[in-house]
């Protein structure tokens, strides 16, 4: 073993002094930080632009600087539009270079399973520590063999509705079933306050409504094997028939072209009475109470949230799940894992969670008890979003094939075609044929 002599030690100290640029070992010790050479590890974290801008600001200004100080690694957080995530992931994987940690929406995890590393240790530790991962989060991020992503949060989709307008038509509480919802909606539309729902090609609100509608009438995409398509069923047909009349009698028919922002604008400008959405409408109305006013006062005092109603086969939700994938090509995997562990520490994660004000629901059960949910009863329904959620592809797993059906908008288009005039039977047959091409292709 090589002996370190006094002169050699001095040389090393001198080298450290150059690196730290503060004057020898004493300088390094005085800064209380690791030498500069150890700080060169940078973790590139790619996320969406949060719908709650305060959360991104909190990460940049308050949370990440602490992480950098405690871990001695630099975190380069980049935020982009949610729709741009997939092109970035694809180019990163194909070129073998890019961000170390990338946010995945829904079951992107299955699409990119071959290009990510297993995060079982981190995910299971989180699950054990925080009362267990919800089955929905587990199903989306784990295929049973590995965790393809580290579950981050669920963006719940609930029906934001105008309390006073619902009261006017005799609905003093939010309808519990789709049939009741249709009866109320009919009266609302007759009064010039239709329900707003998109059936457009948009990733959030359209499938967020159509998949639960399908499930709540008993419709299923595949058998449990994830291969046998069974979409053309009595349940699916009933759901399509329901949607056709619901659309005509209750909805704003302009919704066929809406993207995920149109219903927010329509609700805030008071042209619709209810819409399935994240909490962003309510949060926006809280942020600008003077701008959004009704004839009786601030709009935010007249907004409540309801869980999407139940159908004959039950009550379900399809909520956007976010996870973080650690990319296989990353040269900073150890540092990225260290950072994931750090940010998922309950106290660190809580700082971010509080900025969301209920817009997101964490993926583990303990957070249901958090005091945030008691602060504003309007937000309370969101706390069970992850619990009620079901993954696409049901009854099969949310595989890459299910992701293909989702991204081709086959289920959403089945309803869109029917409301445009195609007989319900033909719309279901069309959708089943398209699904079979996907699953058998």
């Amino acid at each position, binding site marked *: 073993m090589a002996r370190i002599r006094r002169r050699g030690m001095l040389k090393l100290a001198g080298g450290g002094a150059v690196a730290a640029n503060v004057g020898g070992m004493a300088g390094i010790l005085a800064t209380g930080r690791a030498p500069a050479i150890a700080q060169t590890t940078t973790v590139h974290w790619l996320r969406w632009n949060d719908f709650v801008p305060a959360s991104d600001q909190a990460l940049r200004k308050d949370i990440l600087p602490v992480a950098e100080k405690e871990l001695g690694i630099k975190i380069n957080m980049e935020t982009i539009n949610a729709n741009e995530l*997939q*092109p970035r*992931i*694809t180019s990163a*994987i*194909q070129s073998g270079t890019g961000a170390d940690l990338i946010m995945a929406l829904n079951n992107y995890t299955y*699409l*990119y399973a*071959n*290009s990510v590393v297993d995060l079982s240790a981190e995910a299971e530790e989180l699950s054990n520590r925080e009362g267990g991962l919800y089955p929905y989060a587990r199903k989306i991020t784990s295929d049973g063999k590995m965790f393809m992503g580290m579950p981050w949060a669920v963006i719940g989709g609930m029906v934001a509705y105008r309390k006073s307008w619902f009261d006017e038509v005799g609905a003093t509480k939010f309808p519990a079933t789709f049939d009741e919802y249709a009866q109320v909606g009919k009266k609302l539309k007759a009064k010039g306050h239709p329900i707003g729902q998109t*059936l*457009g*090609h*948009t990733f959030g609100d359209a499938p967020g409504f159509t998949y639960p509608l399908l499930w709540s009438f008993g419709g299923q995409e595949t058998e449990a094997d994830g291969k046998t398509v069974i979409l053309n069923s009595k349940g699916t047909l009933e759901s399509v028939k329901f949607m056709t009349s619901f659309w005509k009698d209750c909805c*704003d*028919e*302009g*919704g*066929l*072209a*809406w*993207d995920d922002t*149109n219903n927010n*604008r*329509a609700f805030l*400008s008071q*042209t619709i009475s209810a819409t399935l959405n994240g909490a962003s409408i309510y949060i926006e109305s809280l942020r600008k109470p003077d701008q959004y006013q009704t004839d009786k006062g601030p709009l935010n005092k007249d907004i409540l949230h309801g869980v999407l109603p139940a159908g004959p086969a039950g009550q379900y939700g399809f909520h956007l799940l976010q996870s973080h994938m650690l990319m296989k090509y990353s040269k900073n995997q150890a540092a990225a894992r260290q950072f994931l562990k750090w940010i998922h520490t309950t106290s660190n994660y809580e700082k971010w969670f509080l900025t969301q004000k209920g817009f997101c629901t964490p993926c583990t059960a303990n957070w249901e008890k958090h005091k945030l949910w008691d602060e504003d009863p309007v937000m309370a329904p969101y706390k069970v979003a992850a619990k009620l959620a079901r993954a696409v592809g049901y009854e099969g797993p949310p595989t*890459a094939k299910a*992701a*293909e059906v989702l*991204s*081709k*908008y086959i289920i959403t*288009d089945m309803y*869109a*075609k029917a409301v*445009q005039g195609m007989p319900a039977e033909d719309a279901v047959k*069309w959708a089943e*044929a*398209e699904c079979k*091409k996907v699953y058998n*292709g």
Partner: protein
Amino acid sequence: MAITATTDAIPAQRAPSRIRLLEDERWLAMALLFPTAVLLGLFIAYPFVQGVVLSLTDTRVGIDGNFVGLKNFAKIWNDSIFLTAVWNTVWYTAITTVFKLALGLWLALLLNRHFKGKAWIRAFILLPFIIPTVLSTFAWKWMFDPTFSVINWALFHLGFIKARINWLGDPDLAMFSIIVVNVWRAVPFFAISLLAGLQTISPELQEAAAIDGARPLQRFWYVTWPLLLPVTMVVVLFSVIQTFADFQLVYVMTGGGPANATHLFATYAYQIGIGTGLLSEGAAISLAMFPFLFLIVVVQLLYIRRVETR
């Protein structure tokens, strides 16, 4: 004396062999073409060949594919959404090209006249073409917004409509809307290009025809149009290629909806290649454009050659 001295000195300083090589026109042509050839090779030929190779495999994102022959092409041929996209693209290109040509020619003829502020108007006409497509398309998207459409608002207040028009929610109206935006955006390109063509036509020809008693319409049909035809064909050729491969406009306005009513080749290829990670299938959809475009280009180039050699 000085001149004599200089001319005497030339044979003594013989040009280096490289320079002498470039005195040969064939070598000079090759040297001048080389940078362009490299650029075309890197950014056009290489991606194209890669696209062809990709389309013959079963490559997915992050998974190297195996050779599968024409399987991807067979698959898309049986895909009803793809067939809708093919029909939409052909229809979209044909209709927009006719309108772009007619309106562009009309505008070019007007701009070719002498009037006050001509230079300003010519500059302003180019605005739709200069503004980034995504920006102007967002503005149009708001104008066609199902709830807040300014067009509906204007039509309603002028008394033309009683109920709002669902511009982007109705399949036919959605197609009509994207056609309108495409025409709006490309008319300046047609107008300015055709105007350049019109300015190369000698006014003496028009005057001679007028003296012979030709009416304005006859002067246009028998003098202007034949001389403008080669330029028109090239402009149409460029436009057809661009419109056939259009992406941004539809992606921003409708995302291919409602119910695939406005999907084009490019938007569907993006949806499959990027949205579902089926890179080889996405490449096959993109390449399916090639035979259509190749046929159009060959027919038009043959026609241009025939017109030019008349």
